[in-house]
């Protein structure tokens, strides 16, 4: 066990715990905008988790995956927030 693998395991546990907390907030609500906010935070946590997996395996493939997750997270969250704001996504 090197220092890097220990810290990576700790970081992955922390990020997974953060994702679980976001899921709890999505489940509990109480408002729709809380759920959208929790989804946004969940996307960021998942993206960071993918990046740490890339660090662990030293593979550059994970970079593209993290970038795609960041973009999809932005688009989906803005779409949901726009729906909450106007009642429709594309006017």
């Amino acid at each position, binding site marked *: 066990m090197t220092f*890097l693998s220990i810290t990576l395991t700790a970081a992955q546990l922390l990020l997974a715990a953060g994702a679980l907390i*976001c899921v709890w907030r999505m489940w509990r609500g109480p408002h729709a905008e809380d759920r959208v906010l929790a989804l946004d*935070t969940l996307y*960021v946590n998942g*993206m960071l988790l993918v990046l740490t997996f890339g660090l662990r395996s030293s593979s550059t493939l994970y970079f593209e995956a993290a970038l795609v997750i*960041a973009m999809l997270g932005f688009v989906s969250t803005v779409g949901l927030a726009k729906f909450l*704001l106007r009642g429709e996504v594309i006017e």
Partner: protein
Amino acid sequence: MTYLVGVLVLVGALLAFGGALGLVRLTTFYERVHPPTMATTLGVALVVAASILHFGLLESRLALHHVLISVFVALTTPITYLVLMPAALRRHRGDPAP
């Protein structure tokens, strides 16, 4: 140098966890908007810095394209909240102040 990578990843993950923890600890939505920004700015930036350092050492070249993630997330989070906050204000118009 690998120690620095480990420390950067750990601090970034701690910040991301703190951002998620704020969603549970704070009571109203207007308070809960604040903590995730900690994760999306410094948390992502530190993990990306660790990634740049790690792949820079591994391939002995500057792996600067990882900055894309950090810049993209830091730019898009305010846009998301700029749409989300008016939605929350509009949906709770007329409610007593929290």
